[in-house]
């Protein structure tokens, strides 16, 4: 395990070095993320201004949730840049080059490049989270436990998103192309997660707490921390869901790798 971590670090260091050959690429990426986030937040706030609190969630509550989901999004995207367009490995048979390396195939894939620009998303998400926590006087009620809960939520949420993008990439071993599935499995749920899940119909809520377990990453911990749900122990649900979804995604991945068919030369 320690040895893999060491290899991970070295590969990441070199992929950052490779990335540095294209400094403008990095800069435009950053700019793009900042603009995207601002636009998304503006949309949420505009809706709130029109309709008032949604399902008992005030504007500040929703900014808290939004910050949490944004930071988690940045958190998994830093590591999952290659999984996002994993299709290319399958369509062009580049996955061959991954499998001939003495390392777990998923590790080899995710270290191919690191999306450092996503650090900006994490920072923006954390800033929103901190601002909302301050205005909601969270510390005054629960003290430092709030930060512990937020930390657990952020890590669990990032892991859940990472598991989902891994599962999506793994589906490519069956379908070859996954770009049609991405909006259903990833982008849609990501937008959905920015709002309290209680506004959605029962069936969709059930979906977000099972097959696409994003509810455990954003809504559940936010509801617990904001006292919209009884029982602070519920935060453990997020950690358990993160562990379970990661295990499921890794299982699906290695099942898929066995089906890999490569391409002719």
């Amino acid at each position: 395990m320690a040895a893999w971590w060491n290899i991970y670090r070295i590969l990441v260091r070199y992929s950052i070095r490779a990335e540095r050959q294209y400094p403008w690429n990095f800069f435009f990426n950053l700019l793009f993320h900042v603009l995207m986030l601002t636009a998304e937040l503006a949309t949420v706030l505009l809706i709130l201004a029109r309709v008032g609190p949604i399902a008992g969630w005030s504007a500040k509550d929703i900014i808290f949730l939004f910050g949490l989901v944004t930071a988690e999004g940045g958190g998994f995207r830093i590591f999952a840049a290659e999984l996002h367009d994993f299709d290319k490995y399958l369509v062009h048979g580049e996955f061959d080059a991954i499998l001939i390396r003495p390392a777990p195939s998923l590790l080899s894939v995710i270290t191919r490049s690191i999306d450092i620009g996503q650090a900006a998303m994490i920072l923006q998400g954390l800033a929103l989270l901190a601002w909302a926590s301050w205005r909601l006087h969270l510390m005054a009620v629960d003290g430092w436990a709030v930060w512990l809960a937020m930390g657990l939520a952020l890590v669990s949420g990032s892991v859940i998103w990472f598991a989902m993008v891994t599962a999506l990439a793994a589906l490519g071993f069956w379908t070859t192309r996954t770009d049609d599935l991405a909006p259903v499995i990833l982008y849609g749920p990501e937008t959905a997660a920015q709002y309290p899940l209680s506004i959605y119909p029962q069936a969709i809520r059930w979906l977000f707490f099972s097959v696409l377990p994003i509810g455990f990453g954003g809504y559940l911990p936010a509801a617990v921390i904001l006292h919209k749900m009884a029982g602070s122990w519920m935060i453990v649900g997020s950690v358990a869901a993160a562990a379970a979804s990661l295990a499921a995604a890794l299982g699906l991945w290695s099942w898929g790798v066995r089906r890999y068919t490569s391409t002719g030369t």
Partner: protein
Amino acid sequence: MSQPVPGIRAEGLSKEFVRRSRWFSPPQRTVAVENLSFRIEPGEFVGFLGPNGAGKSTTIKMLVGILHPTGGRVTVNGLSPQRERIELVRSLGIVFGQRSQLWWDLPLRESFEILRALYRIPASAYRVRRARLVDLLELAPLLDQPVRQLSLGQRMRGELAGALLHSPPVLFLDEPTIGLDIAVKSSLRHFLRQINREDGVTILLTTHDMSDVEQLCSRMLVINHGRKVFDGARAELEAAVGVPHAVEVSFENPPRLEGWTPPPTVAMQATGTDTFLVEFNRERISLAQVLEELRTLGTIRDLALKEPSLDRVIEELY
């Protein structure tokens, strides 16, 4: 299992691809490799031949753990490429001619550093090995260039060095000389011969270039339609196929051919006014007998013995 079995063992290896054009359409099955068995001992240099689509790449991909066979058993150095992939590839060198395994945006030097970490090569062994490969492949002036700026020949030298840094006992080469000019080809061949003889590296070489095989391989494994059609030394291949030997004969004067019938298995065809290509089967008639026969046609001015080209031999086999 007692001792690990060195070398490569394939028993009844099969690979069937199942494709569906649409989700619910009936599956289309194509058999890429069928019941293929062979053994390659440590230190051998084997040419792996066959026409396009014969199943060569599919076989190699099963040997290195990229593909999972649908039938049969395979071990390389006593390990299963599928179940023990990570452990196995640590002891394999792999070069696919049409695909780079180096880090495109990094200088060769840094690609080597990454490989050192990945294969956990001890520092002292790494220094010695790297120096030897840089020397043999003349890489010193290229070390600081990003891989994407290297020419095809330069890159292939880099790929070979990268594949051999961790001193693997087994090397798989899939069309390593494709697209290279004669000079680069010949220096690569020289290098391959060296590491095979001096370091005892077992090499399995796939190529369409018969001169690669002719100059390098002690043994040939030929497959077609996923099945083995020949396995053995080159001389045995010629005997098995029965490709005729040939001699080119020039006569002083146009020979008197009227009323002359060539002996069985001898064929004669004009290549000039008084030169002829005479093909014969050495198993049935000796060169001396052929010449004796030809002398009855006129005085022979000159003759040249033609070796059957490997291309021709292989063609006969398909």
